[in-house]
């Protein structure tokens, strides 16, 4: 597991805890929960840029490259989709949708690490 994974791990877990707490407190999605999901997106963008630089620098992906990029691109779409889905109906349940982003992102980052090494 490399630093990119740990960044996604920490940001993802923090985001999930924030959104889960807000949902349990019966709050609708607000700036805090949406920004926490935006932070997950940012951490994945860091992963993306870092990976592009590594590949450009001559590193090779041990597994299937297109599987790795497939995971990464899907992971990048998820936070955007979740935020869109959550602001269409702003109830506490939408915060649970947002909470799912963080854990999903970290699971996908773990898989991306497995493919890379």
């Amino acid at each position, binding site marked *: 597991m490399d630093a990119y994974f740990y960044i996604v791990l920490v940001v993802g877990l923090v985001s999930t805890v924030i959104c889960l707490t807000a949902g349990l407190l019966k709050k609708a999605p607000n700036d805090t929960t949406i920004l926490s999901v935006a932070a997950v997106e940012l951490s994945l963008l860091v992963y993306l840029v870092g990976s592009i630089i590594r590949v450009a620098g001559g590193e090779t992906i041990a597994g299937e490259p297109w599987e790795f990029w497939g995971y990464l691109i899907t992971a990048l779409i998820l936070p955007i*989709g979740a935020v869109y*889905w959550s602001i269409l*109906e702003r109830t506490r*349940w939408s915060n649970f*949708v947002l909470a799912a982003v963080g854990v999903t992102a970290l699971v996908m980052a773990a898989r991306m690490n497995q493919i890379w090494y």
Partner: protein
Amino acid sequence: MTEKSSPGDTGRASGGSLPATGGSLPATGGAAPKDTRNTGPGRLLIAVYAVFAISATARAGYQIITKFSEAPLAYLLSAFAAVVYLVATVSLAKAGRTWFKVSVAAVLVELLGVLVVGALSVFDSVNFPHETVWSLFGRGYGYIPLLLPILGLIWLYRRRPAPKPAKGS
């Protein structure tokens, strides 16, 4: 806001225990204003189904393209699971009686699938050595595949369409 009431409506009006959410979407044709499952907890359910639809589709596609001959049965099962998740996601998001039935069918098939494939992968691991979403009751996915259809059925039951008003007479 339907002032135009037909005889027999008064008795049925109290049927739905859930209060209509203010500013909800305009009901389609005014036929069944509460006949939707894409609100409240349903939105979380749909989101999780959508993630499983994406991941199962991607996984099945990957398995079939790269190594189909290794385990055709397992990978066809993967593809089947992907279709079930897709149908469940779409049907849960749609309003109306027909989509409700589609949802029930999809979620029941999903429950059956995870139970049968889960059991087979435990007791007949020689013939089912290859991973699918439903192998070992979805252990690779934190048992969510097992939990999801149960929650789905509970949600569908709670949001079942009101009984059809008697026709004619």
